């Protein structure tokens, strides 16, 4: 999958003037659309049992007389080969996608950032070399390939898919944080903190970390989309969530076998994945813009 590059690390502003940032953010229609859609998907995912027209259709459920019904007034997005409502399954699919993104990012961001901070702070020493070499090792293969391989060696399932994605995702945070720290390592405020005898943990977490938050926050938002993409790709080839879990990737894969009989089986879950990734990309771009532009 594509990794979004965050350029111009030096241009990231470090001030957290929320009111001003919100003003800038809301000026951009694309960012606002991204925010609205992503908040909407989160709400829908949380309220899935109440929002979905047929909540029982999410799991194991069969209603063969109504199998492969085209989209209509009873079943807005049609039904699948077992007679399950596609719309309900998509709504529950949001749940799995967002849960996956939340778990993976919660597992990945703290260690990745801390390792990057340490490597950046002790730049040029053996600690730096060790951490960054190990990170390079994971980056030497495209993330999806490594995630697929790890998931394959483990037993396929939602939990192991999350483990696999987490295991190969942290180096990107280490690298990003490392580059950001490198850019500010020799600034006066860092030197001042050291000269005044502050402990290295104070310098790292209270002086350097707050100045790295802009790029990290941007990457976290953009990564929600990418983790969802990776998760659905794993499910798509059969190494992630297993049927009857209503995972969007699994749904696209299952629908692919019924392309001739029912296009709606594939197209609607496909659009759902695209929509959710698009929303978080727009949101991430918006967040990056408010940080970068203010610094100019």
């Amino acid at each position: 999958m594509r990794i979004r590059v965050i350029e111009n690390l030096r241009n990231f502003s470090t001030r957290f003037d929320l009111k001003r940032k919100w003003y800038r953010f809301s000026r951009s229609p694309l960012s606002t659309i991204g925010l609205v859609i992503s908040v909407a998907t989160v709400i829908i995912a949380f309220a899935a049992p109440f929002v979905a027209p047929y909540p029982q259709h999410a799991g194991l459920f069969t209603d063969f007389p109504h199998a492969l019904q085209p989209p209509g007034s009873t079943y807005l997005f049609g039904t699948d080969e077992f007679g399950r409502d596609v719309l309900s399954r998509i709504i529950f699919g949001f749940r799995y996608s967002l849960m996956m993104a939340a778990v993976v990012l919660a597992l990945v961001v703290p260690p990745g950032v801390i390792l990057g901070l340490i490597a950046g702070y002790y730049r040029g020493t053996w600690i730096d070399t060790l951490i960054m070499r190990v990170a390079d090792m994971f980056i030497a293969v495209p993330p999806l390939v490594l995630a697929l391989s790890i998931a394959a060696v483990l037993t396929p399932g939602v939990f192991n898919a999350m483990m696999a994605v987490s295991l190969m995702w942290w180096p990107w945070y280490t690298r990003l944080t490392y580059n950001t720290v490198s850019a500010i390592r020799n600034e006066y405020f860092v030197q001042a903190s050291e000269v005044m005898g502050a402990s290295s943990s104070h310098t790292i977490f209270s002086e350097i970390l707050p100045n790295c938050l802009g790029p990290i926050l941007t990457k976290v938002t953009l990564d929600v989309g990418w983790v969802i993409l990776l998760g659905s790709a794993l499910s798509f080839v059969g190494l992630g969530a297993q049927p009857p879990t209503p995972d969007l990737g699994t749904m696209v894969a299952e629908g692919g076998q019924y392309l001739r009989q029912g296009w709606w089986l594939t197209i609607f879950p496909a659009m759902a994945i695209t929509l959710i990734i698009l929303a978080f990309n727009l949101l991430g771009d918006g967040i990056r813009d408010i940080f970068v532009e203010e610094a100019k």
Partner: protein
Amino acid sequence: MIFSLFGLSVLVFVLSRVLPGDPALMLAGPDAPKWVVDQLRIQLRLNQPLYTQYFYWLYDVFHFNLGYSTLTRQSVTLDIIQTLPASLELIGLAAVFSVTGAFALGVVAGRYSYKWPDNIVRIVSYVGISIPAFVLAIIFQLVFGLWLKWFPVQGPGTNAVDQVYHMVLPAVALCLGGMLQDARIIRAGMVENKDKDYILMETAQGLPERTITFKYLLKPSLIPAITVMGLDIAALLANAFLVETVFNWPGFSQLGIRYMLNKDLNGIVALVLVIGIIYAIANILVDIVVAYLDPRIRLMERGE
């Protein structure tokens, strides 16, 4: 680069040996008597310490002996030789599409920035970057294969021309996201340089617009785009796994997915290693191209 490949080999090896699942048991099958499994374990050197196993394994890798695949019932090296060319053809065509498309769209958007061509490219690329390649592949199959019947839905062709014809849909599905991202980077570079003084000077001197656009605007915008293309290669290699599966393309990536689904450890290890090596070579090529294009790097090395 050598170091990270070495690290990668350690990583892959550890992954294949430490994680749950007994290779000997898997090779022998669940019904095999215990003495067969034990003998197999000695034969595969699984009774020896891990670092000894690693050196034996590395020795084998350097002799192109990647072990025996339980899935295809032949040596993994042979599998690679048989399937890799098909994958490289597909990825190569996708790369050609990607580069030409990115230039065309990027230059058009950069030249007519903030006008309608730019807006169209921007909206298309927002959506295009967000669509996962496998979703795009299935949609293409449905729309261009089944509904419009312009292109064949699956599989390899029978002769060279037919082969390319069969490759068009998968290649476009494979490269679209990366192509659009590159187009946006080229556009951004051109727009940034437009306001520079040297462009104003050239316009004032009356240079033809085409010369300015291609010679003075496009060239400096290429460097960041080509740097990012290194990451695009990663995307192509990774997405090939999904796209080949969708289009039933008889390449290495599709075989890789079958290795994975069958837990064929030798196959998975070889797969990660081969992809890692291809990726490393591609990145070195990107570095060389960037060094050639950027006069600062090129001239510095000549010592001028």
